[in-house]
């Protein structure tokens, strides 16, 4: 009995797959996929679901330029920091200056760090492989286009942080040391003349002597500043100048 029922179902299912014309009063059962869909909203593909962002919100999350170019199959549409035929070419270098519009970040403001990076890279490239100066390709970029605070943020602040850290550490250690020797607390140390002097020496030493080669550099500078004068006065070694002799 059950097998007969099964057979019939099977048969009905089988009949459903046959064209209508060859059935004799058979109930055609159509297999339909039932989904709850609304007319206006199409269901998103897997690539668009699951936390995918699009448009502006996805900006900057792409892979690097070269990878993107390879993936999209575009050839050489993007050139960066190259010397072609003795000329400097870069997509962002237009009319002899960096096109600041191409350095805008997601908020629409110019990313000065990228501009600085680009200029550093350009100078390095031209240093290593100098190109002829061409009248039709003037360089119009002036570094003063980059605002002062971009320079401060990029170059001064890290260095300042380092130096302040050193000064703080040195200050603390020296204060402890002096306190242990003389029993004078922090405020008392600052009131004495020697204390003030030591403070100044410590701070200026940290400011001026940043690497071990700085001491040699300063000695060299003093030598440079006075060498030419010595060379000029060599002919007066041991002889008084007439103008000096007169005034005496």
């Amino acid at each position, binding site marked *: 009995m059950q097998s007969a029922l099964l057979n019939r179902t099977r048969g009905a299912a089988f009949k459903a797959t046959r064209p209508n014309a060859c059935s004799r009063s058979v109930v055609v059962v159509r297999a339909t996929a039932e989904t709850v869909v609304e007319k206006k909203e199409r269901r998103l593909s897997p690539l668009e679901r699951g936390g995918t962002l699009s448009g502006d919100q996805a900006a900057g999350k792409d892979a690097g330029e070269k990878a993107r170019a390879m993936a999209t199959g575009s050839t050489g549409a993007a050139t960066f920091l190259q010397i072609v035929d003795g000329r400097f070419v870069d997509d962002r270098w237009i009319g002899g200056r960096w096109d600041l519009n191409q350095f805008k970040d997601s908020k629409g403001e110019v990313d000065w760090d990228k501009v600085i990076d680009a200029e550093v890279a350009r100078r390095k490239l031209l240093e290593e492989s100098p190109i002829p100066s061409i009248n039709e390709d003037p360089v119009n970029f002036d570094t003063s286009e980059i605002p002062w605070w971009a320079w401060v943020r990029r170059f001064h602040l890290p260095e300042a942080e380092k130096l302040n850290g050193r000064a703080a550490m040195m200050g603390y250690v020296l204060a402890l040391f002096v306190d242990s020797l003389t029993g004078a607390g922090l405020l008392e140390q600052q009131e004495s003349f020697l204390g003030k002097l030591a403070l100044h020496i410590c701070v200026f030493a940290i400011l001026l002597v940043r690497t071990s080669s700085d001491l040699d550099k300063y000695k060299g500078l003093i030598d440079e500043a006075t060498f030419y004068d010595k060379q000029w006065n060599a002919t*007066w070694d041991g002889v008084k100048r007439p103008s000096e002799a007169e005034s005496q």
Partner: protein
Amino acid sequence: MAASFANTQVSGKVANRQVAQGRVAPFRATGVRKTAGTQIPSFYFAGVSVHQRVIAVSGARSVSRAVQTVFAVKDGAVLEGRKLRVAVIGGGPSGACAAETLAKGGVETFLIERKLDNCKPCGGAIPLCMVEEFDLPLEIIDRKVTKMKMISPSNREVDVGKTLSETEWIGMCRREVFDDYLRKRAEKLGASVLNGLFMRSEQQGTDGPFTIHYTSFADGSKMGTPATLEVDMIIGADGANSRIAKEIDAGEYDYAIAFQERIRIPEDKMKYYENLAEMYVGDDVSPDFYGWVFPKYDHVAVGTGTVVNKTAIKQYQQATRDRSKVKTEGGKIIRVEAHPIPEHPRPRRCKGRVALVGDAAGYVTKCSGEGIYFAAKSGRMCAEAIVEGSANGTKMAGEDAIRVYLDKWDRKYWATYKVLDILQKVFYRSNPAREAFVELCEDSYVQKMTFDSYLYKTVVPGNPLDDVKLLVRTVSSLIRSNALRSANSKSVNVSFGSKANEERVATA
């Protein structure tokens, strides 16, 4: 210099006859006052009256005389019967201007030049003030440069010359034409121009005259004939490889080697350089100098120079050619030349009655390497001091007069030299420094100051407020350029102190 008095060899053109007649005969017969009868003039030398006689022998025969008297005259003593005799060795701008001033002042002048048609390797630029001060005719100036282009290592070009007025320019001239004009002018005023090569000189005692031995080319032969000349004072104007400087042990100096190729370029390219000169900076072109393209009368001179790395000069020249490749395309090299350029004055610029002027003394500025004007001016100032010290050639002059010239020179031009030295030390140190230099030259205040000090040779103090602004701008430019230097840059840092050349270059 310590020639024995008993064996003085003097060969020359004066015949025996004159000696036999007992006439006082200086070597050249000009300006001789014939003494009456057999009176022999005498001078007081160390309180003792000494008879003066010149013994001259013709030809190359050497004759030793039993009685040879010292021909010594103290400084300031009146010269009787003759004028002061000065030999100027070297007939370039310094020598010719010295000879001219001496001759005008009444001194008997001999100008000894080895090559009267010498085409000296030189930039050939003369400042505006020189035309006025030395009464130069405008015909000897081939071109008037009114625009200078400075090109940074990253090819940033700056047009320097915006502030020049219509009457201001830098003159470019051919050295052979320029030098020749000055020499002829000196000759017209009474100097004797001798074509000869200085060999050596001897002095007869510390107050005696000099005997100059030189090879005379007067007969037109290539080998020349030995000749001598007797003079009281010598001015060494024989350039960077001065023999006079060696004679007086003036000391060594650092020098740059300047290398230049003269290239004839097509008309249309020459049009671009009609009144424009270019300066290329960068350590590919030179670690401590600059490469240049200067227009000459129908060709351009492309060259560069260096002090610290002379062996690589050909590489630097190639780099300069490469940088200017597009602008000088299709050119033909017509001449290659090189010459040393002194970097600073010699330790001793005078000794006794011998003075050094011009390149021989080392009067070339730093940073720009300018020498022609200072050579001519120093020649003139030295001659003026000698003319004054000898009261127009009537008295003997000596080291005191020469030191007056040295002192005047130092006081007048020290500021100019020092400012250019500071500029070189600050802006030729490294590639970032050069970039900052070019960036600063864009400013018209800088251009005005630069040209005023170059064209008129005075360090004019500008408006103090503008100077402070310039200082701030300089510092900020240098900071920015140094910040833009890549961390693993391979460019070099050059220092300009007393260390040896090899130690002055260091990678960044």
